[in-house]
């Protein structure tokens, strides 16, 4: 009788295990993917694949924030000028909670010396479009922060189960599966070497001034996640720096708010909104669109400014003479940029 029961229990365990394996296989196959080769916007899936392929603890700097970050910061350009290795993790309209989750996971394999946090995210305390959230969430493993996010979501659309298991959200993609979906399951996607950046030479003239001001109040949630990021960085001995990529989608009161938080948490604050001239940004040529994202020309200028800032304030080793991988990637990267330059 006991042998029978043991057999049944063993069978049950095997059944659950096989179910789990199949479930995660199909989840990986079916979940939406933002791949560099077919993405017109940020390729978060490729960004995470590239990030996880980096050698452990090989990064000097990490840039976090919204879409302004991945448009505005070019880590390869910084590396080319200074030999400082960096990576940018941004997401469209990313809220502080999702930014925190990005940082939390990014620090599992890397311990950079500096983390730059773009304060644009303090503008957002509303639920972003579902796809934007999935762009970040689907790349992250199951953590307590993810669980917290899943069960606290205010969106009508986003159900906890969909957040935790994108299978349920994307099961209907079975008729749209393409080559990249299968390659992703087999870990066979073409590797990228853009370090989370997005290269574009699209251009749109913009006017550079603060928006008409609003009464800005920092929400408790945003403050809470900023504090969590500070705590996390402190625990790992990482220097956290708040900065604001120069874009006119910014209010004076928000700038003041960001400064207050920086002072409160004793974090350096780089308000680059006022440094447009010093950076050398040309409002006629260096912006990409009406949302005032920087294009490649603008990104290079900003990255040069940031590189100089880092070199001036921190003593980071120039890795160019020894880092074979980054040097090889840099050559490929330069060719890619070359290709993108409008003829």
């Amino acid at each position: 009788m006991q042998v029978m029961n043991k057999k049944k229990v063993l069978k049950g365990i095997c059944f659950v295990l096989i179910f789990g394996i199949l479930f995660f296989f199909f989840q990986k196959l079916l979940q939406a993917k933002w791949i560099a080769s077919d993405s017109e916007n940020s390729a978060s899936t490729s960004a995470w694949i590239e990030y996880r392929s980096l050698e452990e603890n090989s990064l000097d700097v990490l840039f976090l924030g919204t879409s302004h970050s991945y448009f505005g910061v070019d880590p390869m350009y910084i590396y080319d000028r200074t030999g400082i290795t960096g990576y940018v993790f941004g997401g469209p309209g990313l809220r502080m909670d999702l930014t925190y989750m990005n940082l939390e996971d990014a620090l599992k394999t890397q311990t950079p010396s500096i983390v730059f946090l773009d304060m644009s995210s303090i503008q957002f305390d509303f639920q972003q479009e579902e796809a934007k959230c999935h762009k970040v969430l689907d790349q992250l493993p199951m953590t307590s922060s993810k669980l917290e996010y899943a069960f606290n979501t205010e969106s009508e659309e986003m159900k906890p189960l969909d957040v935790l298991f994108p299978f349920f959200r994307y099961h209907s993609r079975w008729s749209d599966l393409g080559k990249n979906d299968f390659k992703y399951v087999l870990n066979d996607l073409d590797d990228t070497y853009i370090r989370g950046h997005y290269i574009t030479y699209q251009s749109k003239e913009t006017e550079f001034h603060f928006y008409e001001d609003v009464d800005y109040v920092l929400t408790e949630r945003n403050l809470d996640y900023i504090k969590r990021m500070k705590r996390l960085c402190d625990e790992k001995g990482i220097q956290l720096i708040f900065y604001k990529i120069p874009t006119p989608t910014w209010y004076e009161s928000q700038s003041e708010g960001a400064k207050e938080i920086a002072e409160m948490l004793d974090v350096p604050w780089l308000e680059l909104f006022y440094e447009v001239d010093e950076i050398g940004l040309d409002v006629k040529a260096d912006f990409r669109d009406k949302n005032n994202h920087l294009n490649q020309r603008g990104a290079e200028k900003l990255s040069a400014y940031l590189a100089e800032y880092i070199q001036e304030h921190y003593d980071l080793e120039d890795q160019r003479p020894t880092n074979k991988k980054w040097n090889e990637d840099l050559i490929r990267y330069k060719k890619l940029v070359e290709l993108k330059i409008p003829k």
Partner: protein
Amino acid sequence: MAITSVHFLIFLCITFCVFYCCPVKYRWVALLVSSIYFYVMAGAVSFLPFIVLTSGVIWICARIIGRLYEEQDEKLKGSDLGRAEKKAIKEQYKKRAKRVLMLALVCCVGILCVTKFTRYAVRYLNLIAEAANGSAPFSAEWILVPLGISYYTFSTVGYILDVYWKRYTYEPEFLRFFLYAIYFPHIVQGPISRYNLLGQELKKELRFDSRRIVFGMELMLWGFFKKLVIADRLNIFVSAVYNGEEHAGSIYLVAMLFDAFQIYTDFSGYTDIVRGASQIFGVELEQNFNHPFFAKTVPEYWRRWHMTLGGWFKDYVYYPCTISHFMKRINKRTKKTLSERGGRFVTVVIPVFVTWVLTGLWHGTGKTYLAWGIYYSTLITISVAFQPEFEKVTKFLKIRTDTFSWQLFRMLRTFCCFMGGRLLTSPGGLRRTLMVIKNILLHLQAWCLTDGTLFTYGLDWPQLVLIAGSVLLLWGVSMLQERASVRELLEEQNIVFRWAVIFAAIFSILIFGIYGLGYDAAAFIYAQY
């Protein structure tokens, strides 16, 4: 809490744990509590008094009737009364029992009628008032239609009639009876269970049996497949066609075909889910479907489709109507005035029409369901009353009736009759039905099936291929089921094959099922009745 929701699965898991943790003696109590919880969650707390009232009235009245019969038996037993006296006592008690029965019927069927027909009546009253005064003074918004009212009223009414007809004795415990009425697997959409079957099932010792539990889960999987993969996918097309503007006749023909499969997979899928869920707890629910699309005649079709409803009407409406004094008088009179056959014809027609018009009204109020009832009454009457003529024609045309082709023809003919019935109700009104018929006859536009128009109703070609594959699978499984129990066949196979089938079923549902964001999982069609 929809049957296809995650909430239901969680509810089922919790109920499962609580149920099997309880001592065997009290397991029925666990079922009662979880059934009440399910009823409140699936409907509303405000629905609860209705089911309590109906089952309370029926239980009390059945108990009174039962006691009256006991008293009568007591009086008759051992006494040296004459035949006439015994007859008088019996008549006296029968009269008293009948009065109690009528009270119960008026009360419970009254609640059913008020909840189901008031809105319809108010609409007509408002139309009349509008024509007279220009305003619609009545409102029926306050009327509640409790979840599963048609199902539990029929189940409980069947019970009291059986007690009245002495088919079995009354249930002495109210809570046991209430569990029979509110038992969660059958409360929303049936099957309409008989007390002598379900009541007894719920009374037996409900012990853990892993084989039965596995069988139950497998049946649920099959039900989920039918509902989520086939029915809800077909619903996308059918809704788009019937809810939209006018379409080509060829598109309507496809919609008619899809609609037939949709309602079958929807309702039989639901039945499989709830029967499977019930099996997990050791309670066998009655079969409600027996592959109706294999039926060769319309009456046979209705013996295979929604069998518990058909059985209910047969036992509690058709037979009592056939053997009533009124029908006997009519039979005698028509035999005299017409002929032997004419008399028989009338005695067939009247009960059939009464039964089918009532069946139509059970499904819904309004002209469409009345027309639906008349449609089936006519078909059944023709097929029964003119059977000799049909046989003569078949003989005259020298048709070999023992061939596969003839049987296939009969199945297709029955299927077309069923589609005709659906055509009366699905398009959403008799006017639209006429419009559909007109377009099929006058604007067929067959090219719509090949020029890509077919794909503009929410289903692209991979989805249509999936539907075709699923329907083929459904047909294959149905053929197997006609011969043997598929679950037993599966049980005999090696574990690798068995598990491969089970995992294929699970992941087919998870991947191809219509659920989640972007899909409004269609409510079960029969839940509205």
